[in-house]
């Protein structure tokens, strides 16, 4: 297995952007039965409501579609968790794919986080329309991204690895308008 930390793209040093801890990611597709079994193995309930994320400690399950979830856990738990999930899900039809190295996690934080994102993302990121705990795939200019609001001014962003430079570069351009 590739050492994920060794191949992470270098991020520009900014006061509104930080990398997240090395993460293992699974793409889960399955019906309600599979969702329940996966939730038990993961130690949390998979969200049924559209565009919501549930987290317990460092683990999280993000609703991406009616039968599609992204499961997140610390990288160190990856191998064990994969075996655990595969064993739990064995009785029911499902698809469980390790996508840990497909994308990287970033965190945009601070009072200008939603303003920065709105430079390229057309979603309404006001707290009423995009409350804490909401997650969704969307677009940022020409790239796809996954947004998860962890706090009023903290966004977890998952972006496909090769688009990191594109994404952070555009954000850096936009951030030139920020004070300080």
């Amino acid at each position, binding site marked *: 297995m590739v050492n994920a930390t060794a191949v992470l793209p270098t991020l520009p040093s900014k006061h509104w952007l930080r990398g997240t801890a090395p993460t293992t990611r699974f793409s889960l597709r399955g019906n309600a039965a599979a969702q329940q079994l996966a939730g038990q193995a993961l130690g949390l309930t998979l969200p049924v409501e559209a565009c919501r994320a549930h987290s317990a400690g460092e683990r999280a399950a993000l609703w991406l579609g009616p039968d599609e979830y992204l499961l997140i856990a610390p990288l160190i738990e990856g191998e064990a968790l994969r075996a655990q999930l595969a064993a739990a899900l064995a009785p029911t039809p499902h698809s469980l794919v390790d996508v840990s190295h497909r994308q990287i996690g970033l965190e945009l934080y601070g009072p200008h986080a939603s303003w920065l994102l709105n430079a390229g993302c057309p*979603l309404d990121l006001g707290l009423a329309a995009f409350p804490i705990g909401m997650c969704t795939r*969307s677009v940022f200019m020409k790239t796809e991204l996954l947004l998860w609001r962890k706090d009023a001014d903290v966004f977890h962003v998952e972006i496909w690895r090769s688009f990191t430079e594109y994404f952070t570069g555009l954000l850096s351009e936009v951030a030139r308008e920020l004070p300080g």
Partner: protein
Amino acid sequence: MLVIQCPFCGPRPELEFAHGGEAHIARPSDPASVTIEEWGAFLYLRKNTRGVHAERWRHVRGCGRFFNALRDTTTDQFIATYKAGEAPPASATGGAV
């Protein structure tokens, strides 16, 4: 920018969607038994409606699901959206579809 109502995710910007052509076209259940003309019609003949048109859309940069929409092709107004497999809402069509 248009705001399109995804039946799963709610109102979303047009940029997240992809158009998928006319809706409610059933593939012949036994392709071997239909004539070449019937098969050609299934593949190529479309209504090209002027007015309220039932069409497929995909929330490709969101939940990824296909759904159906009623859109007025003269005004580009979305009248209603509904999940794939459902009948168009009768109140919204005005008997046009």
